[in-house]
C-alpha cells in the first residue's frame, strides 16, 4: 500500500496526528517501565494500532517499525532496554515524519 489512494485532506489530518501519537507512545512506555516486571500490553496495543493505520495512509516505514515492535513484544525477543530503545526510535520517526 503506497497511500496513492488517500485523499489529501485525510492524509494531512493523519500527518498532523503523528506528534500526538509520539507523545502517547512515550507515556505508555513510561507506564510499561513503571510496572515490575514491565508490562508491555499497553505499548503492544498502541504499536498494533499504528501498524494497521500507517500503511493505509502511505507511511509504510512507520507501519513496519510498529509491526517490528509488536513482534518483539510477542516473541519476548528483546530486553526492556532494547524495547525501550526501539520505542524511542519509533517516537523519533513519528516526530520526524
Amino acid at each position, binding site marked *: *500500500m503506497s497511500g496513492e*489512494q*488517500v*485523499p489529501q485532506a*485525510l492524509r494531512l489530518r*493523519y500527518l498532523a*496526528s503523528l506528534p500526538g501519537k509520539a507523545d502517547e507512545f512515550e507515556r505508555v512506555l513510561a507506564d510499561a517501565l513503571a510496572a515490575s516486571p514491565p508490562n508491555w500490553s499497553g505499548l503492544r*496495543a498502541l504499536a*498494533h*494500532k499504528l*501498524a*494497521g*493505520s*500507517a*500503511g*493505509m*495512509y502511505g507511511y509504510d516505514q512507520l*507501519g513496519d517499525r510498529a*509491526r517490528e515492535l*509488536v513482534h518483539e513484544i510477542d516473541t519476548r525477543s528483546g530486553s526492556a532496554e532494547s524495547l525501550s530503545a526501539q520505542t524511542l526510535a519509533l517516537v523519533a520517526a513519528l516526530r520526524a515524519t
Partner: protein
Amino acid sequence: MRIDLLEDDPDQAEMISLWLTEEGHDVHWYRSGGDLTRALHRDVPDVLLLDWILPESSGMDVLTWVRQSFLGRIPVVFITAQDSEEHIVAALQAGADDYLVKPPRRRELIARVQAVGRRAGAIQPSEILQGTDPYVVDVGRRVILLKNQPVELTSKEFDLAAYMFANAGRLVKRGVLLERVWGRSQTITTRTVDAHISRIRKKLEIDESNGWRLISVYQHGYRMERSNS
C-alpha cells in the same frame, strides 16, 4: 451491499469506510463488539468486516457469537494485523470466510469483500441481474422492467423482488427475507413477507405467461424459479 465494520481505530475505520463507500456500498462503523452485536439485532448486513484486537470483546468473540446466533451464515471477513499462520487458520476454522492482513490494499479489500458478498448471494451495487428475462432487474437504478416497461413497486417490494431474483432456484426462508429486506424489525412479522410476496407476484405478473413462478413452500419459505424448470 450493507457492510458492518468493527474497528476501534478511527484512522483505519475512516479509510476502509471511504474505500467501500466509493464503490457504492453502505458502510456502518462500530467501535466495539457490544455496539455491533446490539446493531445486529436491528439490521442484518450483507457482509461483516471484523478487526481482531479490540479493547473489550475481540473480533473472534464476535465471530463466535454470530455463528451461534440467528445470523447463521452471514459472510465474515477478518481484517487484522495478526498475520501469523496460527491466527489465520484459527479465524478460518472458527467460520470466517476470508482474512486480510493490515494494512490492506484498497483494490484487494474491495474485491475480497465483494467476492464473499457475491458468494453469499448479496446484491452488488450498480448491477443488472443476469438471466431474468423477460424481466430486467436493475439494482443500481432500483427498477424492474417487464418486457422493457418499468413496473411500479414500493421500496420494500423492489428489495424483496430483487432478492428473490438474485436467489432464483433457491428456497429462501421467510425469516431470511425478514432479515434481508426489513432488517428483522421487532414490529414486522412473516405475515408482512407473505403480503409483499403476494403483491410482487401480482404487480410483476410472475406467472406462466412470463416464464416464472414464485412458489410457496409450506412452512419453509419461497422459491423463485423458471416455470419450465
